[in-house]
């Protein structure tokens, strides 16, 4: 592993009107990392993801991916380089069978180049690749889950479908925006090994999460945001021991005692 970071974010700031959603956030992700981004509601986690992946324009700062300055590139070009993301609110194409949802990413230039779909023009070859990807991510082929309409799938499968949409691009870095939220305990339990499997396949992950317990099991480094500021960085123990992080989550000690 080389020491150059895969993704380097420097001093990114974004203001919505008078609200400073991000103020000077920096982070580095190395190849093979699973970086967790946590923080209370409204702390700017999703804004950070949006700024990195080009869905909003940041006011200041730079984003470097594979040593290329991708600051404020359009999202599709960033995705084309191999940096893609899932969405917090999943909106699959409900009327289509699940595997047809993957045709869109498989149609992109990146998927064609990467050879996942060899573009031989054979009828149905994209469908086959799509079903293979879904099977790999936990859709049971035998019970015809990939063929069922997306509208009939439970949340757990929809989250996987959203992740599969990213994997169809053969990405190098995937930013997962709250893949654990809304899942049952058992669904979450089956999601954790999946994330580890992805890392072993060489995909670097950034996970934005509210579910701290599951995140602590898989993330090797964490970043804590509060009011758009980075207030902590390190392993889960280091982060949780930090006074600022405790204050951000539970309030300051004086405040806590004032309620008691």
């Amino acid at each position, binding site marked *: 592993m080389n020491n150059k970071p895969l993704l380097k974010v420097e001093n990114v700031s974004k203001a919505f009107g008078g609200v400073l959603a991000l103020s000077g956030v920096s982070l580095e992700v190395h190849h093979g990392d699973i970086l967790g981004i946590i923080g209370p509601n409204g702390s700017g986690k999703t804004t950070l993801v949006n700024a990195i992946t080009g869905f909003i324009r940041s006011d200041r700062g730079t984003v470097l991916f594979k040593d290329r300055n991708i600051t404020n590139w359009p999202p*599709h070009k960033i*995705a084309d380089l191999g940096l893609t993301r899932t969405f917090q609110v999943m909106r*699959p*194409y409900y009327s289509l069978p699940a595997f047809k949802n993957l045709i869109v990413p498989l149609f992109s230039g990146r998927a064609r180049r990467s050879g996942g779909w060899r573009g031989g023009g054979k009828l149905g070859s994209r469908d086959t690749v799509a079903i293979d990807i879904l099977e790999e991510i936990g859709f049971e082929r035998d019970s015809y889950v990939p063929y069922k309409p997306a509208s009939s799938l439970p949340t757990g499968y929809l989250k996987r479908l959203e992740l599969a*949409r990213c994997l169809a691009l053969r990405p190098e870095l995937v930013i997962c925006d709250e893949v654990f939220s809304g899942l049952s305990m058992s669904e979450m339990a089956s999601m954790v090994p999946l994330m580890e499997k992805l890392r072993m396949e060489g995909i670097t992950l950034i996970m934005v999460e509210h579910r701290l317990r599951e995140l602590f099991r898989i993330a090797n480094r964490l970043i804590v945001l509060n009011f758009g500021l980075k207030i902590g960085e390190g392993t889960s123990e280091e982060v949780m021991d930090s006074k600022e992080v405790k204050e951000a989550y539970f309030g300051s000690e004086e405040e806590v005692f004032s309620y008691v």
Partner: protein
Amino acid sequence: MANQKKDHRKERLDRGIKVRTDGVYAISHWTEMTYLLAPRALLIGGLLAAPLILSYFPYWQRVLSIICIYALLAIGFDFLANYVGLVSLGGGFYVGVGAYCAALLNSHLGLPPIVTVPLATLIGGIICTILFLPCLPLRGVYFAIVSLMFPLLAARIIEALNIFGGTDGIMGLDGFSSGWVEQYVLVCALLVSLFVLRRLVIEDVGLVFRGVKDNDQAVKASAINITTYKGIAVFISSALGCLGGATLAHIYNWAGLSQFGLDYSIIPIAATVVGGGGTLVGPVIGCILLVWLSEELRDLGTLRIAVYALVLTAFIVFKSEGIMNFATRKYQQFERWVHI
């Protein structure tokens, strides 16, 4: 229910449409093939035979041409609205651009209609797409408003600058060599574009178009440039309108400001509502009905618009899914009375 019989109950069977239309079962027996082919044959055969059947009624032959022009616009509208998510009110603009392109090619370069119509389709489509490019980031009602501005603006600019013949338009264009050429060019163009578009939307690229409509963020995150695909879709839709406009110019031997009229923006939308959006065939049926109705109502004079509006409202209130969606559903269902 009024017609409920005693001891009887209505039984409804949904045929296994997926099984019947997909795979080897569909060609296993001639009845199955007929089941699939009959509705298609009815439309194709009906449209191809229509000029022959109407040959005793020259007036209705001309009406058929107008129906085809509206139908071209309507399938373009349906494709753009229901598969790409751009509600375009620019139909009048497409027709006008197509008509003026054909007229200029014919009057200045002296090209015959058989060359000007395809050229005007292509050039007109390119012009419309380039002019619409700045509006492509817009969606829904915002795109509708901006696209409505185009036909209004174009007519005023031609009037104010007095270019392309000003308010008189460009007169004295060559007509088609005969009525048959005019009608078969339009009917064939309609059938071919219907076939191509219906094919396009079920191919993989069609799924990308639908993706742009349903969830453009996910399409962007899938490394696909949505502006490119919106541009392609606008090109397809506007080229269809320009084809109609170019033929219209040669039918009337004239290209003028009224070809930027709002009729060409509004009637295709009404036809899509009546016929059933998202089916592509529905808008064609809608156009046939609406144009025919509007001709039949000519005797009523001013009341015509009122009756027309009532019929439209009735459709929207009572059959908002549209004729084609309703007919497809009924075609795939059996209903029968069974003895209890």
